[in-house]
């Protein structure tokens, strides 16, 4: 489904990604973790072409992300993305946030889009919030709306960049529950997160990044058993403490 092969990226002299390779098969859930600044966000932003890269190749299905002629908007409409800060459009109601992209990008009819929006909001446990504005919702609610907005495009895969890091502790679970359900429904997912509980429950593999390199890419049992690299062991011991 998503195939990253030998990708390197530089900001001027500084190399953010070093020869990264990673395969996500259809229906797989990959958790990406690692210390701050290790390049996790950059890596998943490369997967939908939000960040350009200078070396290597990324394929989504049989579309090459970095190739010249690629229709990036079309590719991106097939990949959902959820951000740390939700990034709902503040001047639109919840309903419009979810409906507008369906109408303008997919060309769905207004009625069909609206019906889909309502159904998704129900699935997210937010049936009565449709006509509120994002700033009138809690962080956890906003993030669930953001997930609904991404799902409304019927994506073939979902990318999550620390979807719970900006949330108060008591709201983390309501978002994780939605993500777990999504994973169990068979969605292909790449999730940057430090929520190891989530990884334990639904991840197929855990990828550990450090200083731009993929240091470890292991099935979750192996990863939580004994990570091979010292860095990963140290990192795990730190984040599992709390």
């Amino acid at each position: 489904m998503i195939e990253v092969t030998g990708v390197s990226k530089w900001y001027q002299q500084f190399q953010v990604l070093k020869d990264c390779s990673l395969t996500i098969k259809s229906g797989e859930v990959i958790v990406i973790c690692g210390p701050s600044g290790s390049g996790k966000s950059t890596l998943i932003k490369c997967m939908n072409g939000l960040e350009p890269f200078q070396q290597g190749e990324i394929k989504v299905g049989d579309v090459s992300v970095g190739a010249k002629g690629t229709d990036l908007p079309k590719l991106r409409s097939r990949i959902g993305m959820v951000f740390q800060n939700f990034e709902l459009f503040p001047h639109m109601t919840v309903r419009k946030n979810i409906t507008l992209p369906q109408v303008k990008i997919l060309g769905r009819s207004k009625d069909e889009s609206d019906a889909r929006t309502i159904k998704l909001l129900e699935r997210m446990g937010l049936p009565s919030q449709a006509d509120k504005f994002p700033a009138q919702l809690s962080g956890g609610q906003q993030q669930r709306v953001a997930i609904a907005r991404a799902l409304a495009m019927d994506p073939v895969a979902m990318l999550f960049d620390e979807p719970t890091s900006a949330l108060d502790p008591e709201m983390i679970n309501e978002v994780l529950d939605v993500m777990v359900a999504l994973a169990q429904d068979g969605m292909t997912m790449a999730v940057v997160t430090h929520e190891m509980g989530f990884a334990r429950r639904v991840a197929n593999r855990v990828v550990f990044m450090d200083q731009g390199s993929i240091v470890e890419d292991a099935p979750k049992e192996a990863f939580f058993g004994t990570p091979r690299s010292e860095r990963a062991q140290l990192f795990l011991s730190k984040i599992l403490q709390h």
Partner: protein
Amino acid sequence: MNYSWDWGLLFRSPHIGWIAQGFVTTIEMAVLAWCIAMTLGSLIGTLRTLDNPIAKRIGTLYVEIFRNVPLLAQLFLWYYVIPELLPASAQKFVKRDMADPQFWTSVVGLGCYTAARVAEQVRSGIQSIPRGQRSAALAMGFSTAQVYRYVLLPIGFRTVIPSLTNDFLGVFKNSSLALTLGVMELTAAARQIEEYTFHSFEPFAAATVLYSCVTLLVISLMRVVERRTRIAGNVGTAR
């Protein structure tokens, strides 16, 4: 001071007609120039926020030129110099066939000058939006044009409504410079009354009152617009 006041002269024909006509012309010029300024200014301001370096360069060049040359000089350039540079057929139209050339030259001159200011507001409005909004919109699959149309411009404009109000009032007041090209707008009408009656206080007082009324009206109108367009739930919202 030995001045014999005669407020009645303002209401006598033909003075009242001059003032009315001048007032209408001033409003017409301001509104038409504002339409040019908003359209062109939004475009130029947007260019300056694109990733494309050539687009950025063009936007910056426009703003630097039109903001730094005095407005009066710009009006003279538009009226006396630009027509000479046009191809022959266009020159013939501008100099002979175009109706009311002073009026339209002033509108274009004021519009292009104000566009540079609007462009700066639009640019700062867009740049005040967190980078993540653009990323999120792009990640949805919106094209760059759609990202601006549906996300960046609507948010950006809301944040700069107060400054845009100032710019509109600016073009309204600056329209008085059109009298140097011979346009009979409000200030010119006041001057004409003075020349005919040797009364200067009354006609200029009348002009001042009219300018102030419009300014106050626009300010209170824009307060309402600001309140209506404020994003619900955000800081400063009464709800």
